[in-house]
């Protein structure tokens, strides 16, 4: 919805390009844009003031470099500053020497504590631990039921009993000891930071179970109030870290920066989707790009690295760029791609992705359909789609439960994609000495064409070949 900072600075950058040195007036203009971008991302006003002041110091008088345009240079400075403020490292969990390691979840109503508690339990389980969940939210109707259902989904037992939350938490701790569990996660009721009685209650719970970690769950969509909420909870509970929930929305998540800056505690985890496994340790360096609206390049690269078997990906990418990309390769890529998570998530992470393309919703259903069609082809057909004639089309359509039109569409798109890949291959090849900036623009154009193709046809396939090319070090705009 908001223009990214990159877009905002484009216009200014054009004017600055010829200049050797940025004047104070230039800097003011740029800083005003940065301020707006940060405020639109819900970064706290006070924090924005500090950030902008610090960036000003670093920006005035910088020499405009040959390689980067001024806007890129400034974005680099801003990005570095935000990363520094968000904290360099992900939180390393230290386990208590005497188990269980007790974790207390706290936060406002609706911030996502119960879901995060279950996701955290699953995370610990994946680390080889044996967690017990305690439902101490006895306030919200059916909150304990919700935790029990989620606990069953992740295979973690849930303890709760009606009555007093402080007592329930204490009994939960006893239960964990009795069962020999090494992690105890206590879910509590949502409460307003200004509700003295409820804040006292959670402080009492904390005193009863003496948590190793107290996590404040903060909704990524939170506005300016995030700071006062975090401050109050920190005063009462001595927060150890923040869990940022609902980060799969389109909020920029400036609250993360505000909270980190004001209470000085790291963002430990982030929930990145509704699925129970969509929960990961927080990477501050990536959040900076998001707050600025610049796409989460690093996450994409890492996810791609994790999923794609490196050799295979490189091989495919090489063939792809030479235009020898077959339907077989395409199928292979679709499968790799599926492991990376929902397509819409991946698209959002690509920087410089044309808007039409981000908006063109690529459904996971379409991927399934495409897969079905390719699977209904013979190996020979997959190698040389040009042999697919009318009767073969009918057979493929019948075999995949689709219409002949779907098959036609796929073949047409695949052919166009092949052409596109050839074009991109030309760009990606080591014409190295050509400026990086120029390369970027051309690739962008190619992507836009790809976007048009996809948006226009709206059919299956089309895009999914991309990340193969985006494998490590292969594709200029992805390597940072």
């Amino acid at each position, binding site marked *: 919805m908001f223009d990214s900072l990159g877009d905002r600075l484009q216009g200014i950058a054009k004017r600055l390009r010829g200049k050797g040195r940025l004047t104070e007036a230039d800097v003011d203009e740029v800083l005003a844009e940065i301020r707006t971008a940060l405020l639109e991302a819900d970064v706290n006003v006070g924090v924005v003031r500090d950030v902008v002041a610090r960036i000003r110091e670093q920006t005035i008088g910088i020499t405009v470099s040959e390689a980067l345009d001024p806007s890129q240079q400034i974005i680099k400075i801003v990005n570095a500053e935000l990363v520094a403020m968000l904290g360099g490292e992900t939180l390393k969990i230290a386990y208590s020497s005497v188990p269980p390691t007790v974790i207390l979840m706290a936060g406002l109503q609706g911030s996502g504590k119960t879901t995060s508690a279950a996701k955290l339990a699953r995370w610990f389980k994946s680390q080889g631990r044996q967690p017990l969940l305690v439902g101490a939210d006895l306030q919200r109707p*059916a909150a304990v039921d919700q935790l029990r259902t989620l606990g069953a989904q992740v295979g973690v037992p849930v303890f709760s009993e009606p009555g007093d939350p402080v007592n329930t938490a204490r009994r939960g701790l006893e239960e964990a000891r009795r069962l020999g569990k090494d992690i105890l996660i206590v879910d509590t009721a949502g409460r307003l930071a*200004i509700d003295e*009685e409820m804040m006292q209650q959670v402080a009492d719970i904390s005193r009863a179970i003496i948590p190793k970690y107290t996590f404040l769950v903060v909704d990524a969509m939170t506005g300016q109030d995030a700071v*006062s909420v975090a401050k109050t909870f920190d005063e009462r509970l001595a927060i150890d870290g923040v869990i940022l929930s609902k980060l799969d*929305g389109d909020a920029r998540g400036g*609250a993360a920066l505000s909270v980190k800056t004001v209470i000085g505690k790291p963002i430990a985890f982030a929930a990145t989707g509704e699925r129970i496994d969509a929960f990961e340790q927080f990477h501050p360096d990536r959040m900076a790009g998001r707050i600025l609206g610049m796409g989460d390049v690093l996450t994409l690269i890492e996810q791609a690295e994790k999923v794609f078997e490196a050799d295979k990906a490189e091989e495919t990418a090489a063939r792809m760029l030479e235009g020898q990309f077959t339907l077989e390769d395409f199928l292979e890529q679709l499968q790799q791609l599926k492991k990376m998570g929902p397509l819409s998530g991946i698209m959002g992470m690509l920087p410089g992705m044309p808007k039409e393309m981000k908006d063109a919703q690529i459904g996971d259903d379409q991927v399934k359909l495409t897969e079905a069609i390719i699977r209904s082809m013979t190996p020979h057909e997959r190698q040389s789609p040009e042999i697919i004639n009318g009767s073969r089309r009918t057979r493929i359509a019948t075999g995949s439960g689709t219409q002949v039109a779907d098959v036609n569409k796929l073949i047409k798109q695949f052919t166009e994609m092949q052409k596109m890949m050839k074009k991109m291959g030309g760009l990606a090849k080591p014409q190295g000495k050509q400026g990086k900036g120029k390369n970027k623009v051309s690739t962008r154009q190619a992507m836009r064409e790809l976007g048009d193709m996809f948006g226009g046809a709206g059919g299956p396939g089309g895009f999914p070949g991309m990340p193969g090319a985006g494998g490590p070090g292969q594709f200029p705009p992805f390597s940072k």
Partner: protein
Amino acid sequence: MLASASANIAIALGASGAGIGILVVIRSRSKRPREFAPATVEPTKEAVDVIVPEVVVAEVTVAPSVREKAGRTRSLFASAFQSIRGRSIDAATWDELEETLLLADIGIGLATRLLDPLRDAVKDGSLRSPDGVIAALRDGMTAQLATSDRSLHLDAVGSPNVWLFVGVNGVGKTTTIGKIATAQAAQGTTVLMAAGDTFRAAAAEQLQVWAERSGAAFVRGAEGGDPASVIFDGIQSAAAKGIQLVLGDTAGRLQNKSNLMEELKKVRRVADKAEGVVNEVLLVIDATTGQNGLAQAREFAAATDVTGIVLTKLDGSAKGGIVFAIETELGIPVKLVGLGETAVDLIAFDPSEFVSALFE
């Protein structure tokens, strides 16, 4: 200052102060279990306007701890204005005003649009004093909330009225439905709740508790089932039983999830096909929401023709300033405000009270 005395005075002064008075009372109420006499839930024509200010004052005087809380939530604008008032209008004045607006989540765009005309007015001399600027700002903000019709549409006769509740995760949809059902039932309206949130674990159970509390009929489907059919069944069941109002819950969803927004469109389409009239689609927005609230409103309105906003959790320290932008830019009126966890803590939205609550 004695807050109780000023609350009294505020009520005596009339509507502008009543917002504060109401804020105060609601908090003191939430302290107690549900034991309010039906007398306080006076049926009126004004939908859910069930709070009687006179009771407020009495309770304020007996619950002194409440005053501190009210003081804390109010201090944001109050302290800024205090520092502005004592001196001449300079650059710092504008910075301070802007920061105050931003802290209320009003957004940089709207803050600029509100302050620019005032700057001009000071330049050309038509505004001279800080008090004048503050008063003009207040008028400007009230003018942003100029929608006239904030009523909830409930036809007395004919097929069931259907109110759908939509919004992102965790804003308080289910709780809002519970409160509305209680208020409507107290006015003699027969209510049915349809548990269209088939996704979140135990969402139906949560709603069922509210149904039992308010005496509303209740329809649910299987967990993970089709929400549209649950809503449809609810409406059909209400039509068969002659129930007047169907409150349809839906699962929370982030507005950028197109598949879930498509699902919501289907809910709306299917609800329209049933034997009822969908005359409210209420988007529930959490007062702590920042600038993303505008995106929420835009997307949900596009998917379901939202007829009004319910602003929840305004009893916290958040100011809910994003509703200014929503109402100005999208023309969707705020209809209800949630001020606490109990059933009577949902009241009709009054723009001038809302703005006053920010300023005092």
